[in-house]
């Protein structure tokens, strides 16, 4: 069962990484213009 002490922190760490990535994206304004973003992907430049 000692493996739990290794696995659980890893699981929590990965989850926390996802949370951190989301909060960073939110803060850097990537959700400010959701409609525009889907169209920007289509433009050539």
């Amino acid at each position, binding site marked *: 069962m000692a493996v739990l002490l290794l696995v659980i922190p890893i699981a929590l760490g990965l989850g926390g990484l996802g949370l951190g990535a989301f909060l960073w994206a939110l803060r850097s304004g990537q959700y400010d*213009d*959701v409609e525009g973003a889907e169209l920007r992907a289509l433009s050539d430049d």
Partner: protein
Amino acid sequence: MCCTDAALAYVEAHAAWSEANTRPSRERNYDAFVTRTRAGAARADFAVEGVRCASCLAAIERGLSEVPGVAVARLNLTERRLAVEWAPEAEPDVGLIRARLAALGYAAHPFDPHRPADAEAAESERLIRALAVAGFASMNVMLLAISVWAGSVSDMTPENRDLFHWIQALVALPAAAYAGRPFYEGALRGLRAGRITMDFPITLGVVLTLVMSVVETALGATHAYFDGAIMLLFFLLIGRVLEQAMRRRTRTLAENLAALRCETAARIEPDGSVRDVPLAEVAPGARVLVRPGERVPMDGRIERGRSDLDRSLVTGETAPVPVEEGALVQAGALNGDGALVVAVTAAAGAGFLDEVEALMRRALETRSRALVLADRATRLYVPLVHAAAALTFAGWLVAGAGPHAALLTAVAVLVVTCPCALGLAIPAVQVVAAGALFRDGVLLNDGSALERMGEIDTVVFDKTGTLTLPEPVLAAEAGDAAALARAARLALSSRHPMAAALARQAAEGAEPYPGAQEAAGLGVRATVDGVELRLGSPTFCGAEAQAEAALAAAPEASVICFRAGAGEPVAYPVAQALRPDAAAVMAALRAEGRRIAILSGDRPSAVAAVAARLGVSEWEAGLTPQDKIIRIEALGRAGRRVLMVGDGLNDAPALAAAHASLSPVTAAHVSQAAADALFLGRSLAPVLSVIAVGARARRLMRQNLWLAGAYNLVAVPLAAAGLLTPLIAALAMSGSSVVVTLNALRARARPRPTPSPPPEGTAEVPADPAIATP
């Protein structure tokens, strides 16, 4: 040079015959709309009209980046806003940006940079962060909790179970402290104000659950409820985020509309120059210039100039009123053909607007605010739940259980009744219904208005600008096509609102006559092939007889006359046309058994004509704002649930007094603020969709409240009997929330097709469904 000299010279230049009257004659100064970033670069934000595709995005951003000095131009398609930043050393030229956008086919207007900071945006970001944290925590806690549940039927050792509980506590406690803040703060605010809000049982439930779980874990018990507490927060935050998103979308669009209505004033500076400034920067005593065809920005007294004013947005009266020096003018009146210099009067006690606002305050105070469903549910729910918990505690003590076991069971009751489904029941319906209304071109100011709209049995309309379109059109078939073509082409040179009705009849691509001149109070003239063409008042064209005949045929109209040389003059009746589907909407309302009435400030002959065409027998004309509010309140006392639909400043008190209210987006500012919802476009059908969606939303909210109640009926006895395991709590909580949310989604369904507008004889301009300008 003295300031008055410059202003006077300007006005006199306009009062005489002048070509300058016929086109925008002065550069605008937009310095008041530019801010500086921290790096020293200039920046301005614009509301942009008509963007809705990928090519618009590219066209605007590419087109503007070619403008010299512009460093970055970025369009936000969700909010329909454009941010332009200039290079640090470049001189910002807002006028050039507007001109370039106009050339690309988009109308744009800069925002007042000193408008109050967007608190809604900050709040929704805070809620989303809380939701993210709660989501992360509930997933991970649930992972550990399920391991424990699985372990308790297999071979998990008590040591491992306790370890898992402690890890859950490690994740859940900080997450709950962070993500639950909106609820804790709400509960505290409510308590300070002496009220028990829905936030209070939520806070109590979450805190008690967490404390109990920590104690149980420390004692090495089998069950801990960390997952329940954090999942509860997650579900409730979803409801809050949805609610906030709805509010923010409405707010953003309303701000854009306000900016596009150009709510600025052309202030005359001490040095004689004219500068466009946001309304907030105009102090009483300042002088503002009102150019032909513009709206009077603020209440004041005319200092120089004379003109006709169309005061239909203020009083509902459609006939233009001649005004001259010394006359008092109200904000919202549309200037005719003469430039005016208006001295802004003191804001306090200065006249019409204050009178209207005083009436509105009274209306809002006396309105028997029907308690919204959510409040009623809270009032019923909180004492019931707390009584149930207290009874459980007392019952177990009496039955001989120890205080520890009795307390544990009582807390379990509080936990399981935590208003998870109840918290979602109403916001979920509001959001879905508001989305459905949004598709129909209705912006909801207030989510709780939906329930009130569902109860409507009487609809009261204002006439001018509500049943009719805000801009006048030609009211009769013109006899002589050649004369009409010339009159229409001449009308292109005028900025008088009545001439605009004729100008709409001009052939595609027609150019104004070169050398056309306009004078206030008379009209516009041009010499073409040696023949003098005149368009304007009956006197100006020598057409009194024709004008009288035209007025006799169409009593609700006003006349504009045309004469070529010494030829026979023609009188064109110009009136505000009915909205294309007004008759169909009236018929539909009658078919639904609702009472219809028209309350107008306009003259009786004009109102009678409209009422007859729509088949409305109950109408009153010549009403003051005071009269309107009295009529509405009388209806309310008689037990009618009144929906007021109106646009004028004079309707604002009635809008506030009615059970629910609706305004077209072209309405006066005060009315927009007073109305529960705004509708876009030229159709009147939103009145029907508002009532239908409201009724549907109300039904679904009640169903949801019953569903949430039924869940408690099952869960409370289980908890009180001490049979509640964390597994059952989790299933019950998420199950009821999902059921309630799915039920709310049914508000999306279209209640029924709206009547299609029949074609009208006059020229139709397709309305922009997203943003309409007056």
